[in-house]
């Protein structure tokens, strides 16, 4: 059982959506909480069981369950012995996750709990377990303050004190939290136009209450602005606090934090440094020169995040902290790092990004690719790409060097740098020619594209590249798609250039002279060539004719069909070519030849169709037929294979609707036929009644299904063209194995202006459990097209599965008695649910929810309720009002139903009948027999 739940937990974490299709979140949550409460479960297992709550708290406690969940977790925490410190730490993390994601009101208690843990003086002497939990508590507090800036402002003084006391990781936690809280508090002050030095002093001094009333509740957290970093490089404006010249206190705090920063791990040092950068940036009276003492140490480090935080420091303070000399030194340092032999390639690439975006004291432009002015070609030459670089490094470097040489401007034709980059390109091409891996090939084409993007004006190189690519294709026809992709991208990004056309022409040239092999690749290229109006197509036609003639004479079935198809694709492109009149005769010849002599019947037929179109339609009409509905080309998959006329196939295709069109809503069922009272003779005793009842089930179809009614209607916002729908067919797909598959439901027509039709869906359960159905609708519109559209998922709730017991009313009480006795005696499960309900509320509840299921008089002291769930499950209730609470005694023969019953009772008793403050008065107990 335990390991099963652990497995399901990990299943849930990896695929929450499909998991929740089969199990309800409530049920899963209650299972998890049950295990966590259970003393017999080992702490290691409990640690694993908390993972779902940590990773997906909003899925599990999304609809109002978080308050209860957090109370449960807090009670587990309080009962957890100190030696289980891993579990205690994990519980704190889980609580933080649940509370942050649900913004629950229990948060204040939790903050108190955490503050209690970090203040606990008893353990400073070194209990390892307590220490671990305290370190986690610091981190939880930090996360709470991050998610809800200002939450801990009023505890600043306490935090400052604890920071002095702590050591090791606890000290690190305290420092990070203190710096963050201070940063958030100062940010808050910057948002208040009246705030000044007084408030800042008050903040750091003893009396925080005069600073302002802080938000102390996760629910009332301010907007998202406070979450953003205030340091955004030279362009971002930083909110500032005007304090006048005197800011001794803050300066003192910042410099003491900087001095202690050395005690933190490099990652935390970087984070602290960034917080302090933000803080000093907001308070203009504090000079950034405070950081000066740290700079050398920071710039000498090989720790990437420390160096990065220094870079952000530079971005924030530019020349008020870094002189021109420092700046050049820093840039050189970055260049050293971006090619240092002892750093990993990922780190080096990151430094290249930093060089590209180096925040200069006097930037010239802020454009996307604004290189730092200081980066001269000579400095950048250390980053020249070579064939020994891995693909990503090569491309990153090529990008940077291209930008550097682009700056050289008009004389780039003569530039040695460009010549060198081109040399690299040819070296790569050479490797691709010698049979490179896919990886290298892709890198080569990307490098080509980058080069073209930057040096379109360097014609000598470009012409040469074009010829060499064409030669490359001749030797490696399998590169056809890479080349087509390159042409597409160049035309897309550089529409003014005719380089793409040039390459296609060169390819056409080499193809028609190539030996007659690799037709498939050649035809792919030629069909792309045929899209270009400016390229004469005579050579293509000549080539096609040769292909067709040789293919007609050979006889190899399947390949022949494929080849024929590929030829037809090119023909089809040529049929819509701008200069069709010049191609008319040779194209006609090819199609005619195929019609008469091609080995494959299918291909012959298609060639005949094209031939007919070519010879009978005018050019405009031909273009009209073949390009009509061009936007739908991608939606047709199989039809495209045949290069069919899209106009003809469009009507035969099922189209996807983009937006929602229809929805289903639950409807009240039509009044049931009055029950046959005539059979209502009073049975002799309980046993006979039960036997009579049970006998009915010998017929397997008895009560094996139940109907649900729905209305099918249009969504509120109309989509043009979908107001009148015909032949609507609804298809239902199951998401689990609880029900037999459902048959489709048809609606002849659905008009927006008419009242919506009511549909009855007959569900045949295997197990009567709530489920979700996927629904899709297939329908026709007035223009004769057929459309497919998924509808919102249909949820079958627990309430909907509850039915009156299928037995005459007069026998119901006896059946109830019989079943109750049986279930209580070990044949089922019993459970108790309690809640506070006033008499009036109870009566209203019974009227609203239990009336169809009652087997006893309402006026009696005990109210008995009998639910039947198809095919053979029962849920019996006995409502028993006590002095302080109403007891709902539950008995059932199907254990899986208990959590649903619990959830159901919780919902109906809390909705409108009880004030919500009594939530916590609920309690329930399960006793398992058997």
């Amino acid at each position, binding site marked *: 059982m335990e390991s099963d739940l652990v497995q399901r937990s990990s299943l849930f974490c*990896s695929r929450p*959506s499909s998991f929740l299709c089969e199990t309800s979140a409530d049920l899963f949550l209650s299972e998890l909480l049950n295990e966590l409460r259970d003393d017999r479960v080992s702490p290691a297992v409990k*640690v694993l069981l908390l993972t779902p709550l940590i990773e997906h708290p909003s899925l599990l406690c999304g609809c109002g369950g978080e308050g209860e969940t957090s109370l449960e977790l807090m009670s587990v925490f309080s009962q957890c012995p100190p030696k289980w*410190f891993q579990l205690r730490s994990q519980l704190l993390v889980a609580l*933080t996750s649940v509370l942050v994601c649900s913004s629950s009101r229990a948060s204040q208690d939790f903050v108190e709990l955490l503050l209690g843990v970090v203040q606990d003086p008893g353990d*400073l*002497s*070194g*209990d390892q377990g*307590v*220490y*671990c939990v305290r370190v*986690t508590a610091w*981190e939880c507090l930090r*996360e709470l303050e*991050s*998610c809800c800036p200002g939450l801990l402002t009023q505890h600043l003084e306490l935090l400052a004190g604890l920071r002095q006391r702590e*050591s090791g*990781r606890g*000290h690190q936690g305290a420092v990070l939290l203190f710096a963050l809280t201070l940063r958030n508090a100062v940010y808050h002050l910057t948002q208040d136009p009246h705030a000044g030095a007084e408030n800042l002093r008050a903040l750091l001094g003893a009396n925080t209450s005069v600073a302002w009333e802080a938000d102390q509740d996760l629910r009332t957290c301010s907007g*998202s602005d406070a979450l*953003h970093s205030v340091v*955004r490089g030279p362009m971002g404006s930083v909110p500032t606090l005007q304090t006048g010249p005197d800011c001794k206190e803050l300066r003192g705090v910042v410099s003491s934090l900087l001095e202690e920063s050395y*005690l*933190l791990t490099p990652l*935390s*040092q*970087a*984070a602290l440094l960034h917080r302090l950068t933000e803080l000093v940036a907001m308070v203009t009276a504090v000079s950034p020169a405070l950081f000066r003492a740290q700079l*050398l*140490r920071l710039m*000498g480090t090989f720790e990437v995040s420390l*160096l990065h*935080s220094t*870079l*952000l420091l530079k971005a924030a303070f530019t020349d008020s902290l870094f002189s021109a000399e420092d700046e050049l030194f820093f840039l050189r340092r970055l260049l050293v*790092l971006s090619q240092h*032999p*002892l750093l990993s390639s*990922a*780190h080096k690439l*990151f430094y290249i*990004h930093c060089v*590209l*975006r180096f925040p200069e004291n006097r930037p010239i432009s802020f454009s996307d690719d604004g290189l730092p002015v200081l980066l001269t070609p*000579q400095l950048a030459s250390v980053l020249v790409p070579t*064939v*020994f670089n891995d*693909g*990503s490094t090569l491309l990153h470097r090529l*990008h940077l060097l291209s930008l550097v040489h682009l700056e050289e401007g008009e004389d780039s034709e003569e530039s040695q*740098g460009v010549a060198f980059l081109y040399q690299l390109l040819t070296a790569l091409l050479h490797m691709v020619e*010698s*049979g490179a891996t*896919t990886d290298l090939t892709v890198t080569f084409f*990307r490098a080509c594209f980058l080069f073209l993007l930057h040096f379109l004006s360097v014609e000598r190189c470009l012409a040469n590249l074009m010829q060499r690519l064409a030669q490359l294709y001749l030797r490696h026809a*399998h590169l056809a*798609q890479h080349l087509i*992709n390159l042409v597409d*991208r160049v035309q897309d990004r550089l529409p003014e250039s005719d380089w793409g056309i040039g390459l296609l022409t060169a390819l056409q040239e080499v193809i028609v002279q190539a030996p007659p092999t690799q037709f498939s690749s050649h035809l792919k290229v030629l069909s792309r060539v045929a899209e270009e109006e400016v390229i004469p197509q005579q050579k293509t036609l000549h080539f096609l004719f040769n292909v067709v003639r040789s293919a007609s004479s050979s006889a190899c079935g399947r390949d022949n069909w494929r080849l024929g198809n590929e030829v037809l694709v090119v023909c089809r492109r040529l049929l819509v070519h701008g200069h069709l009149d010049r191609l008319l005769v040779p194209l006609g010849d090819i199609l005619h030849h195929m019609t008469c002599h091609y080995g494959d019947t299918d291909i012959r037929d298609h060639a005949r169709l094209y031939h007919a179109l070519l010879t009978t339609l005018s050019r405009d009409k031909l273009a009209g037929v073949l390009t009509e509905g061009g936007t739908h080309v991608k939606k047709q998959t199989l039809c495209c294979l045949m290069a069919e006329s899209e106009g003809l196939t469009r009507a035969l295709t099922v189209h996807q609707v983009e937006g929602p069109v229809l929805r289903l809503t639950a409807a009240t069922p039509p009044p049931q036929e009055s029950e046959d009272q005539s059979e209502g003779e009073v049975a002799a005793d309980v046993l006979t009644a039960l036997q009579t009842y049970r006998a009915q089930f010998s017929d397997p179809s008895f009560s094996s299904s139940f109907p649900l009614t729905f209305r099918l209607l249009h969504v509120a916002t109309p989509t043009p063209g979908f107001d009148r729908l015909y032949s609507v067919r609804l298809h239902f797909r199951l998401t689990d194995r609880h029900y037999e598959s459902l048959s489709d439901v048809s609606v002849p027509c659905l008009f927006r202006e008419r009242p919506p039709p009511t549909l009855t869906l007959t569900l045949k359960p295997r197990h009567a459990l709530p489920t979700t159905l996927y629904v899709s609708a297939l329908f026709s519109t007035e223009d004769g097209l057929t459309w497919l559209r998924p509808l919102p998922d249909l949820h079958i709730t627990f309430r909907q599965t509850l039915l009156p017991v299928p037995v005459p009313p007069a026998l119901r009480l006896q059946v109830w008695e019989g079943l109750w006795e049986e279930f209580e005696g070990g044949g089922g499960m019993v459970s108790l649910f309690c809640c506070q309900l006033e008499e009036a509320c109870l009566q209203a509840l019974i009227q609203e929810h239990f009336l169809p299921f009652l087997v006893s008089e309402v006026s009696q002291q005990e109210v008995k309720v009998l639910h039947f769930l198809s095919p053979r499950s029962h849920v019996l209730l006995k409502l028993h009002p006590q002095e302080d609470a109403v007891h709902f005694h539950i008995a059932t023969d199907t254990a899986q139903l208990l959590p649903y019953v619990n959830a159901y009772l919780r919902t109906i008793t809390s909705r409108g009948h009880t004030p919500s403050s009594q939530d916590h008065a609920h309690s329930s107990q399960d006793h398992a027999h058997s």
Partner: protein
Amino acid sequence: MTFRALWIISHDKGRNATTRFSRRFSTVEHRAKRMAGSSYVAVPEDSVVLQLLLIELGLSDPDKPYVALRDDCLNRPRPPFLELRVDASGKELLWPVLALLQGPLILACLPLVDVPPEPRPPLATLLSVSQGLTFLAGLQTFLLGSGSKPDGEGLASRLGMLPSVLLQVCPLGTPLDVPLPGPPATPTAPASGGIQKQPAWKTGLHRGRATVSVALLETVRSMQYGNRSRQDLWDVYGRVTCKCEVEGVLPNVTVTLSLPPNGSPLQDILVHPCVTSLDSSVLTASSVENCDSSAFSGPYKFPFSPPIEPFRLCCYTSQVPVPPILGLYQLKEEENQLHVTATLKLHESVKNSFDYCEAHLPFFNRNLMGGVDVKVSSGQLDVSKEKNRLVWTLGQKFPKSRECTLEGRISFTGQTSGPSDPLCANLTAYIKLYFKVPDMTLSGCCVDQHSVQVYSSAKPRIVTTRELQSKEYFIWNSTGSAPVSSAPMMM
């Protein structure tokens, strides 16, 4: 400074990819949602992320020569900084995803963008990106050890420890430290009392005899072309590794590197974050600008307070006037035979005492070797016909003349083709040298035992070592075209 999610994926060259571990940080996701507003893109489920990562890393469909999504030549973010196209239209982009590829593992994380998301901020403005790099690199060392090949069981057990390790170093998405290699230790409560605070990066205290070991390892790389028109290249870099077993919460240790009187300055010095202070002169010399002969040339002092585990104290590069071994390699094609000559010359400044010295002569893009008739003047020659490779083992010493030669003929008459390398077409070929020389450095840099200062009560034992090794030491055939490996000086 925070991550939204973390993934560890194993694969076999793109095949059988599975998510071995994943973690979503829900509180960070909550922040991401609030900060990104309408441009928020949710993190898809693991299986989707897995597929998208494989596509962006070029690993999906390894058998297909061209896949449009994978191989598009468009200028897009490249590894390790990726952008995942979550929906088919390409509008929903998950960015920035960091992914490190190491052997059979992909380690990926999704840093939080803590500045306004529109327009897309440069990577260099997001502190969480560099933190992600550090964290993933640490995770990689934790999972794979220092080598890149993990054994399956070792990896599985490391993955099993990961939840409890994360609980310590990154419980809520903000990395507090990198996972420490070695067996996971629960942090011990710091010793209380005393004025000094224990640093967060110190996981325990050493008790017992004080020992400081300092190891200096220099590596030399070279590209030699044997061609007047092309300049030979070589460079040297060194790293200093320390293991300090010294008592105290924050003990002070100083290591000093010194150079011989005429030595050229150490350049590009990078230091460990535990170094407490640095003199600005230490950092001045840099390889990206012209060397100034009057520059500071030591001694280089590094005061630090050591962590408990071994660590890399600093690293540097150096420009030495000559390569340790100068080679010449010539191939001539002669009627189905290849005429091979090679000469290696050890420079007089280098100690003639090797741990090992081997020259590998691979031949690519040819049929397998048939007859091999090759003589060497010193050392011994192994012929590996199935790999089309000659291995010339020079052993511990060069001959007295410090020069040795190889000469002979090879015919490639085998029926099957040997290994291939697109770089080595026609007569493009190389000799690759592997050697290690104990107790010497090319730069002349050394750590004198007496210069190591430890400020503690007990006198510590101090061990210093140094050695030189080769890496990527190529001698290209001078009769063929050799690939360019570095730019000529561009003015």
